[in-house]
């Protein structure tokens, strides 16, 4: 598949740090690199341990310590298990756009007290703890095994839509541009609380939908 990159709407594309080198992290790193971004990747420890993973699964992504990767980036993708989030130092990502791809689903994650307050979506709780970052929820509701294959050039009739939700409009723009350049239609939501529509058990979780169908599905649910 070949894709023409979207025109540069940002003079300098944001530098991306992907935290997490498990199922999802390397795939996000790869598709971001292929969309023209500069990307680094980190796990919780020594970058030497993920060197081969970066080299084979996301060629071009520099393996880093998490703190270094985050410091040098404009946008940090959180692709770590939710139960590890409480141990993440918020100052690492202060002043950054944080793309939260984490999901909370107690039957598979176990019960996490911090995320049990049902009035809030998991990304709102993440935002509350990362008070000095602009959190955007996206890329959480498609499987890591789909992320690669389902990319399509802008305008393709079967292009899949992904939700992009956040309170900070500029951060939502940047994340939506990332989603679009990678190969998906970005459907914007102007608040993190709307991000609950993107969660497990919700109307679009794990469902490949084109923009029109995506919008129908979330409106039906929100109504």
């Amino acid at each position, binding site marked *: *598949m*070949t*894709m023409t990159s979207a025109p540069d709407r940002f003079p300098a594309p944001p530098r991306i740090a992907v935290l997490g*080198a*498990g*199922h999802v992290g*390397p795939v996000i790193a*790869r598709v971001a690199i*292929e*969309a023209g971004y500069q990307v680094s990747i980190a*796990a919780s420890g020594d970058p030497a*341990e*993920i060197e*081969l*993973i970066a*080299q*084979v*699964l996301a*060629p071009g992504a520099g393996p880093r310590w998490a703190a270094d990767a985050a410091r040098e980036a404009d946008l940090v993708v959180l692709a770590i298990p939710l*139960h590890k989030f409480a141990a993440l130092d918020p100052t690492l990502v202060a002043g950054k756009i944080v793309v939260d791809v984490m*999901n909370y*689903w107690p*039957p*598979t*994650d*176990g019960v*996490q007290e911090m995320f049990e307050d049902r009035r809030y979506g998991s990304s709102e709780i993440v935002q509350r703890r990362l008070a000095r970052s602009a959190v955007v929820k996206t890329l959480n509701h498609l*499987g*890591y*095994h*789909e992320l*690669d*294959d389902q*990319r399509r050039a802008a305008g393709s009739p079967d292009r899949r839509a992904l939700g992009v939700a956040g309170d900070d409009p500029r951060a939502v723009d940047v994340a939506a541009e990332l989603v679009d350049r990678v*190969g998906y239609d970005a459907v914007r939501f102007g608040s993190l609380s709307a991000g609950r529509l993107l*969660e*497990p*058990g919700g109307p679009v*979780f*794990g*469902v*490949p939908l084109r923009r029109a169908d995506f919008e129908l599905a979330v409106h039906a649910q929100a109504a």
Partner: protein
Amino acid sequence: MTTAPSDAVTASAAEAVPFPLILGLDTFGDVTHDTNDRPLSHAQTIRNVVEQGVLADQVGADFFGIGEHHTDDFPMPAADVVLATIAARTDRIRLGSAVTVLSSDDPVRVFQRYSTLNAVSGGRAEVILGRGSSIDSFPLFGYDLADYEDLFEEKTSLFAELLKGGPVTWQGKTRASLHEQDVVPHTESGPFPAWVGVGGSPQSVIRAARYGFSLMLAIIGGSPARFAPFSQLFRQALERFGRAPLPVGVHSPGHVAVTDEKAREEFWPRYLEVIGRYSTIRGFAIPTKQSFLREIGPQGALYVGSPETVAQKIAANLTALGANRFDLKYGMGGLSHEALMTTIELYGTQVIPRVRELLT
């Protein structure tokens, strides 16, 4: 945009060492239904699995594996007992777990049980170790899901020590330490084959290489070809750890019937029912006819169809993945024992010879 691996990767994949082709069958002991579509008892389901294993041997499958599960749909917590029964009635087929949930088990006990199976079967035992995506065993045995990484890492390291044979010295946080401990029964002729089942975590691939286990890719959804970089990652990691090449296998679900249409018609309603139920539990979308047809097509992970259709798909994916082993996970809750016996027979008598033909 391409998914082409780097040059370094391609070079090492080309040097892939040929291992003998292995074509096996796996079951999770999915509860079967009788002719009135009523579920059979757990006990009858287990007895049927014994018959299925014996038939797998008779029709020429290389391996019969049983996946540990702890639910009403899959009453299969003691795979080794069932495997030992099959061992007593066969003398050729290899027998193993697919997988053993090592995270919530004691590696010493796992070693003892499979080393015992190896003894009674005359050296035909294998294990496939898994971290356990089937989370039912964690609460059952009092483990915290949040510890799954650490549990698997530690227990894999101990299992690797146990397999070497000889007195074991080991220290960790998840079980009592061992000091110069002799663990019996000793194996007769070195370690039995051990694999690590990997669902999509590259860190698990590296772990398998680090401890010298073979790699079993569990591909249960999406395009199989996207796993090709995992075989490359495995080969490169083995090299980096100074280990000799080791085999790579693929485990995927499917169903074989005389025609494509019959296979689809038998499998789809059961798939919808079982996978639909699990999707609800896990927060995923319920499968649709469209998503199902994608999965059974060339770009999907399911092997549902006539012997020819299934054989073509197996051969194509083994080639694409640089793998030398394929285990078909047959069965789906609600199918009849008779339908499963047909799948096994067609797999052994038609699919296996055809795949061998296609790959030589």
